């Protein structure tokens, strides 16, 4: 037994040394702050040099009754429910389209990916101008096609969140398109040939060959988009500052307000822990369901 372990230890050594730098960075910049924040959530730390007091679960009980927090949670769920399907659908369609186009593929790929690498602030400002309800081009076009009272977008508490979702989808779909495109291009040709021999048409080929082969990639994209949708902050901050009213106040934005505007860092840390738990639960559910619909 002992000699077996010694032999294995030697073979693990080079691998461990290789990942050690990355792991140390991960530990310092991600793991330690995570633990620190978790501990902070049980205190009333106010961000200043005053010693924090341990207050147990007070922050968490306050959270459940805080209507502002609950509204931001609700807004975030609406955001996720709209953002995830729209982004995945757009990314998938773009990937399929790009897969069929040979000549312009490189340029189109760049064009679709471009919003993802553009600065969020400039995007927010530019789209803010586009969404101007009176003089902006979007409503101009809507009126031209006959919609008499187009939504007032960022000036309306009903439509502001939708406007933000649209901008976020536009910005992000390029990134997931690249991932899905790689996935599609990795599907072996012989599967399609076999399907065609069996008499499947293009659409059936898509349903029974492309989608199942793509399901691991789709799964990854689903997990990533959901996690991403709970982290939206800069778009909200620049476009609407949480308004009008509280209609675009999402979770991370609320955490920011409590931590850096109201100086209730302990409370904000509790909110962050709740966010972490939500994402973890959703991811766990997804990994459970993975066995059901992801085919390898």
């Amino acid at each position, binding site marked *: 037994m002992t000699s077996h372990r010694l032999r294995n230890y030697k073979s693990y050594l080079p691998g461990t040394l290789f990942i050690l730098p990355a792991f140390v960075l991960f530990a310092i910049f991600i793991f330690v702050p995570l633990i620190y924040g978790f501990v902070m959530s049980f205190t009333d730390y106010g961000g200043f040099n005053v010693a924090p007091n341990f207050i147990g679960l007070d922050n968490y009980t306050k959270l459940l009754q805080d209507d502002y927090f609950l509204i931001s949670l609700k807004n975030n769920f609406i955001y996720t429910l709209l953002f995830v399907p729209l982004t995945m659908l757009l990314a998938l369609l773009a990937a399929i389209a790009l897969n069929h186009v040979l000549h312009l593929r490189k340029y189109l790929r760049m064009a679709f990916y471009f919003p993802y690498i553009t600065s969020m602030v400039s995007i927010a400002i530019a789209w803010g101008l586009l969404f101007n*309800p009176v003089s902006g081009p979007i409503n101009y076009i809507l009126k031209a096609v006959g919609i008499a009272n187009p939504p007032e977008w960022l*000036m309306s*508490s009903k439509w502001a969140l939708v406007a933000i979702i649209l901008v976020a989808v536009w910005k992000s779909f390029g990134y997931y398109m690249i991932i899905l495109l790689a996935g599609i291009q990795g599907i072996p040709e012989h599967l399609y040939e076999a399907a065609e021999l069996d008499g499947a048409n293009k659409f059936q080929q898509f349903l029974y060959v492309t989608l199942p082969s793509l399901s691991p990639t789709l799964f990854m994209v689903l997990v990533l988009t959901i996690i991403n949708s709970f982290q939206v902050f800069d778009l909200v901050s620049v476009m609407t500052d949480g308004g009008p*009213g509280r209609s675009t106040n999402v979770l991370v934005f609320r955490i920011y307000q409590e931590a850096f*505007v109201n100086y209730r860092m302990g409370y904000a840390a509790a909110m962050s822990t709740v966010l972490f738990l939500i994402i973890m639960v959703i991811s766990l559910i997804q990994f459970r369901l993975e066995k059901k619909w992801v085919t390898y």
Partner: protein
Amino acid sequence: MTWEQYAELAKSLTKGEGTEKQWGGYYADWLTAPLGALQEGTTILDDNLDPVGNWLDYLDRLYYKDGSHMSYKQMKAESIDWIKQFESGNVAMLINGEWTLNMLKADIEAGKTDIDFDMAPLPLPEGTKDPITVGGVSTFIGINPKSEHTDAAFKFVQFVTGEQGGALIAESSVLPAYSSDKTKEAFLNATGIQGSGYFFETNTVVENQPVPQIDEVNRVYSEQRDLFLFQEQDSAAAIQNFMKNRQSVLNR
């Protein structure tokens, strides 16, 4: 001048359309404090918020009904630079704080604009006799208790906040905290605007009450005010929602 008279005057001064449009007045979107209510002695922390509701209705009149001021929606949607509007000559009357004086003078000296302007005291609610304006406390001076020269520092603080220091500050066209004939004279000489003497002749009511949660109360007030000025709810609903939210803020 009363707010009623101001509104009428602004309406009569509004003319033109499109690029030739001249607005009677400009009331910036970030002026959240309910000026008229504050002048009457009501703050957003009071139990009876009727004056605040009335003020909201008044704003609705300025922005939308009379059309004498650029609408709230337009200011927000286009992120209008308030001072450029005034400097371009599109606006007849501008309601703002005393720092505007310095900004305008600096811009005139830099050649960015050549407008001719003067100042008048803030309009008053009906029935108010003495001039009263709304002010925030903005500049503070403090002494670090760990410093070695606290006595000297205190002497300096006394100087800066006294008449002599006030006169020196006034010579840079900055409104001093110390109000007296000497500082008023220094200020008038520095600014060259006759109307700037009005600052020294009014009482000031504080814009933000010194309670710890005033920032949060301001924020929830501004949220409801936004919804009202975006015409999504009437002033009664706005005040009601505000009172509910204010209660949960103050209960923390």
